[in-house]
């Protein structure tokens, strides 16, 4: 819903400023609109909770004279005028109407919470239908279904009317996303490269020296067609410059910058690029300088990706300083490489490629074994996806990090220990709440819910052992929660002094 100035539920009611001295009722003092905290409507607003039937009732406003129903209050007022009521009855009640906000009747919905109420009755109606209602309206052209009629109408107008197709094959329904994509897409780079290859001679010699075997341009998700791009987009026809050399300014800058960086690279041993390249051969150091990427290097991207892969592996083997933010992007790139085909963009990117602009952080030494484990885990993740997901385990690419030597048991499709090691009974006893009964109730309420969960994990043969041996204390909790998985569970013997949740308290009911 696009509504300008939507803090306006109460704007219909003019607040009559009654400052005693003069009759300035014509120009009410401009009150500064209170800015609400995001996500929280005006704390003084009146929260209205309507039942689903009332909410969806189309004619909530009923004329008391003839019982005719209207969807909007304004319409009702208009109608009432027609009844020729005496003046007194025609006026609306003069009491100020407080701003109203509405909650969604659906209890599981995020907007059921008063602090997430919506300020607009139409809005909450639409929301309720969209989110919790039946989708009765179906688009003719595509198969999209809608619960709200206006949504369906709006969609039907647009559906199939405008489509933008990039040379690489990707289709867009919005022009701005199409243009942005096109600007950076390889298809355009290739088109320029072609036009420059046709140029006589003068390819930038500086750039040439830096063009390497590796590809410096990431491959687009749908591999760019190497054939002459058909400009079937709706961009104005711009025949590529055939005879001209590359825009001097651009390449000069690039070359100059590249030169500068190369110097920097060569001079400082730990280059701004990934240090792994520093410890690899100098060739990979030069390889690291992507700034060499003038358009001529676009053709290089056509070459095989193998050098990239080799470099990746080589640099993986080089241990780096341990960073606060250990950088799994490269490892992720690798693990994804292992499971996806080399043509994919993710492979093509390879975390190593990020040079000066975004220095990568090398993960702690990731041996081949770890790599294979990770691959197995990825593979297992793929097959056991439903199981893992079912137990609320996010896919490993999103949350695991590198260098997990105990990730082996991940590959067997086990569940990350979910803190079930701390039994409900333990939590139920002796809760040292700091006087906030609300918290106590919150937490007392929950334990019994999670009993069965333990059973599940028991079945999988996990969790209990892990949690139990973890001992007590915060470290145990952290271990068993194992946020991102792969925490070395067996090493969690750190005692903490607070033995609240030692083994005896764990109420196993398996």
């Amino acid at each position, binding site marked *: 819903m*696009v509504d*300008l100035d*939507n803090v306006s539920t109460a704007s219909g009611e003019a607040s009559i400023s009654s400052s005693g001295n003069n009759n300035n009722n014509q120009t009410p003092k401009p009150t500064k609109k209170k800015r609400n905290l*995001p996500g*929280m409507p005006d704390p003084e607003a009146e929260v209205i909770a309507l039942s689903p039937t009332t909410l969806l009732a189309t004619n909530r406003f009923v004329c008391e004279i003839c019982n005719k129903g209207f969807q909007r209050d304004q319409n009702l007022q208009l109608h009432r005028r027609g009844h020729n009521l005496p003046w007194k009855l025609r006026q609306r009640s003069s009491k100020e109407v407080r701003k109203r906000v509405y909650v969604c009747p659906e209890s599981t919905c995020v907007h059921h919470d008063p602090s*997430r109420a*919506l300020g607009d009755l139409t809005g909450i109606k639409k929301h309720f239908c969209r989110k919790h209602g039946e989708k009765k309206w179906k688009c003719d052209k595509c198969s999209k279904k809608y619960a709200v009629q206006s949504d369906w109408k709006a969609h039907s107008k647009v559906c199939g009317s405008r489509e933008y197709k990039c040379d690489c094959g990707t289709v867009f*329904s919005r022009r701005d*996303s199409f243009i*942005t994509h096109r*600007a*950076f897409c*390889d298809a*355009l780079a290739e*088109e320029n490269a072609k036009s420059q290859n046709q140029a006589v001679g003068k390819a930038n010699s500086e750039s040439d020296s830096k063009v390497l075997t590796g590809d410096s341009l*990431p491959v687009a*998700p749908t591999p760019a067609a190497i054939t002459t791009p058909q400009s079937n987009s709706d961009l104005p026809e*711009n025949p590529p*410059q055939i005879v001209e050399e590359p*825009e001097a*300014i651009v390449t000069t*800058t*690039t070359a100059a910058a*590249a030169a500068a*960086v190369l110097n*920097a690279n060569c001079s*400082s041993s730990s280059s701004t690029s990934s240090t792994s390249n520093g410890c690899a051969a100098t060739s990979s150091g030069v390889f690291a300088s992507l*700034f060499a990427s*003038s358009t001529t290097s676009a053709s290089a991207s056509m070459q095989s990706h193998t050098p990239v892969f080799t470099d990746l592996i080589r640099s993986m083997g080089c241990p780096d300083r*341990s960073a606060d933010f250990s950088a799994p*992007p490269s490892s992720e790139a690798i693990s994804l490489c292992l499971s996806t085909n080399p043509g994919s963009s993710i492979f*093509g990117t390879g975390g190593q*490629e*990020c040079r*000066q*602009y975004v220095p*990568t952080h090398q993960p702690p030494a990731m041996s081949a074994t770890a790599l294979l484990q990770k691959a197995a885990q990825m593979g297992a993740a793929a097959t056991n996806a439903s199981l893992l*997901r*079912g137990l609320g385990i996010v896919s490993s690419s999103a*949350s695991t990090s590198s260098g*997990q030597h105990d990730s082996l048991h991940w590959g067997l499709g086990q569940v990350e220990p979910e*803190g079930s090691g701390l039994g409900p009974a333990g939590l139920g006893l002796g809760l040292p709440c700091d006087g906030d009964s609300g918290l106590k109730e*919150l*937490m007392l*309420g*929950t334990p*019994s*819910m999670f009993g*069965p969960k333990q059973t*599940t994990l028991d079945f999988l043969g996990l969790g209990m052992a892990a949690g139990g041996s973890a001992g007590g204390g915060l470290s145990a*909790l952290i*271990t068993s*929660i*194992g*946020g*991102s998985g792969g*925490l070395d569970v067996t*090493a*969690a013997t750190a005692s903490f002094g607070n033995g609240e*949740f030692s083994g005896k308290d764990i109420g196993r009911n398996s």
Partner: protein
Amino acid sequence: MHVHMKAELKAASISFQNQTLFNTHQTTPPLPEPEALKGCLGSLDGACIEKLLLHCASALESNDITLAQQVMWVLNNVASPLGDTNQRLTSWFLRALISRASRICPVSMNFKGSNIIQRRLMSVTELAGYVDLIPWHRFGFCASNNEIFKAIKGFKRVHILDFSITPCMQWPTFIDSLAKLQEGPPSLRITVPFFRPMVPPLVNISIHEVGQRLGNFAKFKDVPFEFNVIGDNVSLTSEELSNIESTNFHFESMLNLLNPNMLSLREDEALVINCQNWLRYLSDDRKSQNISIRDAFINLVKGLNPQIVLLVDEDCDLSSSSLTSRITASFNHLWIPFDALDTFLPKDSCQRTEFESDIGQKIENIISYEGNQRIERLESALQMSQRMKNAGYFSVPFCDETILEVKGLLDEHASGWGMKKDESMLVLTWKGNSCVYATAWVPNEIRDHIGLNAHV
């Protein structure tokens, strides 16, 4: 509220235990965690979760480890990276709290290596898709580009200083609109700083290469174009570069570059300063120099006599030193992108998880770090506006054309996205809640010079 909730929880738990859900140990078990618990946790809504988070935070602050771990246990059972909006958001907050806890209570295991959120690098085309997933970024792009377009009318040369964490994503549409000018496009020069805070979204190629692609595109559109990177000749160790504490250092170095000489400013060009999600990373601490980096930046930039300065950022106050207020503010702000993604992407969507993970990184920085390491220092739109006014800027209202353009943009996205005007600010809203604000500024001197009283 509590009593009501407690009763509901108890009632739910009784029926829950009778379910044989967990007795089916078959090949494809149902989804126990998110779905089955959903009923019970249904009443454990956003407000409750927020309270739990706050309890956990205050427990950590007062070193009450026992309470902290109890609350964490509960939160852990609420949290689910693949659950609904609240569950997903909670899982990131919980992770951040744990990360914070681990600093307070060091444990004898390699915790760091395993809980740090991954740094993800994407290709430049992926980034192009990323910024268009929801109007979060594109809103700022659209509003800013339109205003820039107006501000440079009549100039033959345009120079844009682009300070942004989404490198160059804003400009293709701008170049496209320049190309369509009847009188022919002005020549365009874009300068970006080499250094950029180590926050997502990160690309896997150098900024030089990103700029070079942009140049390709400009060439394709017949717009004379030049791309420059400043500050890339500082040789630093990789340790220094990637250390998040060095953010301040880099910004300070960058400040030295903000003079007409280093930037090769020309008299006849229209200078535009574009700041997207940028100022928040500049430190607000007044150090020995009596001026913070943030203020120094604003002042320096004003001294360059720009035609217009665009400032876009998120409307959320995270500058407080109190952890609990930061949790409240960020929790109530960041549910928005989570909710927006929930409306049109499935639970297991990669794009969604990655986008959320990026936000999760921010959450971690906000909650788990302090001092120089905490670089996410957003201030509210009002505070930022006041800061600009104090520095001698005049706020330029957005013209009707811009508003129409932005409306058109939002129409193309899911319903629920809206926009409102707050004085001279344009604010992107999701279901009525403010997300991102866009503002345009002109130094008072320039305004007086060109007689800009009412922006037509």
